[in-house]
């Protein structure tokens, strides 16, 4: 299989990444090289094999629904690009 520029644009949009035309071109070539390499997986017979999502077989632990963390909002918001009155500021999304 081979990707085209339109598909690169589509996945860049999905990934919320702005790509310049030149970057898209380079990316296309590199991704085609990588997917050409990955293609060998298709030749392997995996009928009846259970997908392995994780390195170890564990079930999700449950914990009591109680407060365990202290309020550290100020410390966490100190590293934010823009905050006001304890809120994270983003460009207007609702008119």
């Amino acid at each position, binding site marked *: 299989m081979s*990707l085209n520029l339109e*598909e*690169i644009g589509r*996945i*860049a949009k*999905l*990934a*919320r*990444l*702005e*790509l310049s035309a030149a*970057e898209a071109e380079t*990316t296309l070539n*590199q*991704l085609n*090289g*990588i*997917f050409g*390499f*990955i*293609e*060998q*997986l*298709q030749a*392997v017979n*995996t009928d009846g*094999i*259970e*997908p*392995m*999502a*994780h*390195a*170890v077989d*564990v079930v*999700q*632990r449950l*914990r009591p629904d109680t407060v365990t963390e202290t309020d*550290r909002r100020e*410390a*966490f918001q*100190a*590293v*934010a*690009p*823009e905050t006001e009155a304890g809120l*994270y500021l*983003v*460009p207007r*999304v609702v008119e």
Partner: protein
Amino acid sequence: MKMINASLKDLSAALAAKQVSAVELSGLFLDRIEKFNPAYNAFVTVDRAKTLAQAAEMDARRAAGETGPLLGIPLAHKDIFCTEGWLTTCGSKMLNNFVSPYDATVVTKLKQAGMVTLGKVNMDEFAMGSSNETSHYGSVKNPWDVNRVPGGSSGGSAASIAARLAPAVTGTDTGGSIRQPASLCGLTGLKPTYGVVSRYGMIAFASSLDQAGPMAKSAEDCALLLNAMAGFDERDSTSLQRDTEDYGRDLVKPLAGLRIGLPKEFFGPGMDDDVRAAVEAALDQYRKLGATTVEVSLPNSGLSVPAYYVIAPAEASSNLSRFDGVRYGHRAAEYSDLGDMYAKSRAQGFGAEVKRRILIGAYVLSHGYYDAYYLKAQKIRRLIANDFSEAFKVCDVIAGPASPSVAFKFGEKSADPVQMYLSDIYTISTNLAGLPGMSLPCGFGKDNMPVGLQLIGPWFGEAKMLGAAHQYQLATDWHTRAPEGLL
């Protein structure tokens, strides 16, 4: 005693005997960092005052009666570990202003053990790379030859040990990022079984593969460090609840009777002759020490690199979606709306390799391709893990090369991502299976560059593996070697 080349055990003894204080010891390494780091670019953040204050605290703890094998010993953290009050960049422009408001569990545990933070060390951006060339803060130089890469992604960690800028460092390994740089820089590094060390506060790359581990001069040092790093953490949903163990318990165990499996796929034509010669010599040494070798097969291991480059980017694309310019990290200066702010902040904050992997991940997870790529790769992951289960029926540990070549030169592989990806051909299968693995120095190849022997243990076989490594290090001195002019 030469402090900069001393084992952690000897440093500990010197501290206990008051031959040196924690402040003096940290000062010694800080001086070396100041002198040598400009040549290697291993450290990205150093804060002398903060380090010395922490060292003074450890001296006070000792004065108050506390003892411990790591109390007062300095170490550096890979810049992927959130370290409270320290800049934590993950090698990225995205986090060039991120002063962490909290400590990773690994950082907390090592502090509790009495270790002093020497600084933060350089790495490939978001741990994506095998040469340290993807760091936003410039590549790390290999102390054995500054024209060569130190390996990656824990390249700053490896170079710090090789140049004796730190007696111990932390690293992380998603596809070989501890073992390959350890091999290329001539030191000992261990990636534990998945789930043994907490991932809390360790900036995520591929969550089902990421695992932190120690890097130091010797297996004995690594055992001490792992004892302090390992343990259940309720803040990591994949942390394993197991009894505490002493990872150094097999260090004194003789090798007689140890069965070493040699996967025939690891000894094929992909390995350079100089690496092969050093690895074969190490195996001869093991046989001399009483171990036996047996050929095993990992028939699907050749698929590990392509499977990894589906699974790891898929997980990365999901993990790195958190970098959106809202709560932390880089935000573009100009944008038209929220969507544009995300797209521009991410485009400006991430480097080329990170973008590439995010795009691969977004593609393999997208509608219509999920089954063909992601699910397929996960099935192959199972086959790779099954191969190891079979192999461990006839051997105690597996041995082979850690890297197919000695350290390569800058630029040699950076133009072709697939060539770069193949430098982890011997390490990736271990991550996919969740097994522990390590690299230890076993000689020198062409141009006097270090070669690493990889050992792979069965699940939770860290102690066994460390024992096998230590016995080899008792009989050889490769692990004590340092680049000329640095001792």
